[in-house]
């Protein structure tokens, strides 16, 4: 019996010839990420360990670790400012050179940096102190989110236990219509399988549509595998992956693909040509319907941001709708990384947003996780390119968030109500 790409990577990393779902393996880790929320959490774990007599003078491999300042930048108050200082001192102490600092060159949302900077390579195992670490699986890597204790353990030992997940295959076929984005596809999938539909499992995306999707669009699919509960989302690497990495890193890698006779616990097949733009209503990413079904519902705010919805192509798509128009509701655009922000300026996208009346802010997780920088008031209704809309996710527990593609969000921004993007294209 052959192995899937996920199984092959876990077998390689645990020095085994083969693994099958439900095996427990101890896998050697290739890359680790922490940010300004999980970092201080990991530091806290280290300090608890110190009280128990375990002192760490060095971590396993500082060159395999990077740090991102993204959740509470710009610092929202004294506590978050102190967290940045704590993290900065800690990264110096442990000689972690890849620390992407707010206001000091390239920085941005950790998941965006992982691909934008070519930090994770095909075939690698990458763990991050954030649930949307799954994003980077689009590079053909096994990318898994972990908590503070697990990350601290990896920083000490360079390895950790995994249960080999079953893989569900999602085959997407057909020519992608111009009004459909990867966001519509993944929302449709989550609507079908639910927020626990892939719990403990791997979600592998394949098919002729995925083969043609750009790297950034593929990253939207894997990003929101988290919202279906998946351990990881993954796409086998191909020429699009290699071309994307060529301009970003000269590190060598050994790409991995699944065997032809690999076994999947389930397969779902979609025809993208018949898909209408999709929206997730409050209060769950699985609560989906066609945008057309709720057209005209009034919205207070449009948010174009986050690792899921503010990559360069997301901004291009939003700009396509906003060009020469005026927004009718508060609209915020936050590119996902400094490099993307600069590209958006050079391409004229930022002018389009500003001329339309939107505000363009610095890269941050900010309001996506209800932390700061534009959180929602009680009863306020937001349409957002982000990935979660649980109660209180973007602000007050009685605020509401609709999740949709940048095209759908931009169409709502200029009309002040939910609008099928086909009416604006």
């Amino acid at each position: 019996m052959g192995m899937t790409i996920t199984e092959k990577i876990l077998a390689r990393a645990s020095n085994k010839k083969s693994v099958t779902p439900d095996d427990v393996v101890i896998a050697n880790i290739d890359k680790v990420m922490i940010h300004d929320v999980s970092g201080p959490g990991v530091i806290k774990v280290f300090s608890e360990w110190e009280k128990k007599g375990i002192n760490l003078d060095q971590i396993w491999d500082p060159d395999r670790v990077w740090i991102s300042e993204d959740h509470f930048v710009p610092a929202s108050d004294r506590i978050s400012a102190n967290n940045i200082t704590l993290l900065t001192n800690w990264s110096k102490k442990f000689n972690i050179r890849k620390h992407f600092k707010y206001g000091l060159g390239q920085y941005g949302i950790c998941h965006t940096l992982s691909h934008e900077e070519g930090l994770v390579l095909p075939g690698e195992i990458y763990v991050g102190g954030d649930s949307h670490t799954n994003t980077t699986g689009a590079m053909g890597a096994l990318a898994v989110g972990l908590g503070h204790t697990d990350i601290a353990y990896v920083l000490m030992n360079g390895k950790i236990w995994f249960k080999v997940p079953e893989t569900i295959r999602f085959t997407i076929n057909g020519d992608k219509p111009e009004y459909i984005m990867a966001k519509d596809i993944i929302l449709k999938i989550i609507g079908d399988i639910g927020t626990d539909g892939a719990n403990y499992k791997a979600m592998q995306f394949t098919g002729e549509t995925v083969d043609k999707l750009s790297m950034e669009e593929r990253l939207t699919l894997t990003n929101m595998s988290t919202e279906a509960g998946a351990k990881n989302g993954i796409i086998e690497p191909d020429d699009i992956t290699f071309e994307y990495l060529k301009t970003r890193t000269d590190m060598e890698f050994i790409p991995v693909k699944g065997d032809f006779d690999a076994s999947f616990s389930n397969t779902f097949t979609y025809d993208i040509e018949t898909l209408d733009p999709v929206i997730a209503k409050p209060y769950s990413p699985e609560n989906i319907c066609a945008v057309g079904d709720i057209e005209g519902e009034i919205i207070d705010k449009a948010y174009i941001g986050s690792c899921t919805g503010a990559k360069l192509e997301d901004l291009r798509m939003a700009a396509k709708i906003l060009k020469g128009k005026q927004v009718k509701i508060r609209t915020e655009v936050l590119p996902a990384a400094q490099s993307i922000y600069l590209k958006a300026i050079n391409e004229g996208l930022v002018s389009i947003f500003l001329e339309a009346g939107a505000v363009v802010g610095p890269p941050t997780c900010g309001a996506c996780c209800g932390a700061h920088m534009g959180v929602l008031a009680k009863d306020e209704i937001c349409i957002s390119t982000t990935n979660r809309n649980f109660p209180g996710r973007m602000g007050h527990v009685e605020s509401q968030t609709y999740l949709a593609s940048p095209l759908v969000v931009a169409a709502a921004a200029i009309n002040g109500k939910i609008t099928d993007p086909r009416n604006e294209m």
Partner: protein
Amino acid sequence: MNILRGRIHKYNKDNIDTDVIIPGPYLKIHDHKELGKHAMEGIDPNFSEKICEGDFLLTGKNFGCGSSREHAPIALHEVGIRAILSPSFARIFYRNAVDGGYLLPIEIDPASIDKISDKDEIEIDLDTNTITNTTTREEFNIKPFPEIISKIVKAGGLLYYKE
């Protein structure tokens, strides 16, 4: 040793997510006691006042879905919760609860939920994989921990677990 006794706090809702267990603005806080004060604030603002040391939660399926924030099991542990009974858990929450040694994620048959009421006293026996509702005298099976989880639980967390 392997029997835990406590009182049930029932929140019979599926998909109780980490944004509800410990809302985003508290992510910057790493003082465990402070986090405990805000546990479950998104579903019950008075939660922390109701809990006594050693109490249990009973919830619907997919408890802890959403983010990887370890703040979630930390806040619940800090306020006194020692086990959560649910038909299923989101994977990162489950891992964090076990590897950090904060609390026990106990998987139960969905049909058991209706047979346990808020404030019932129960006993969890990890040797026989059963729970007894001492208020109603009913007994239920729980799903045994997989071997690795059982070992990490016994060790008191991943740090103390030896391969």
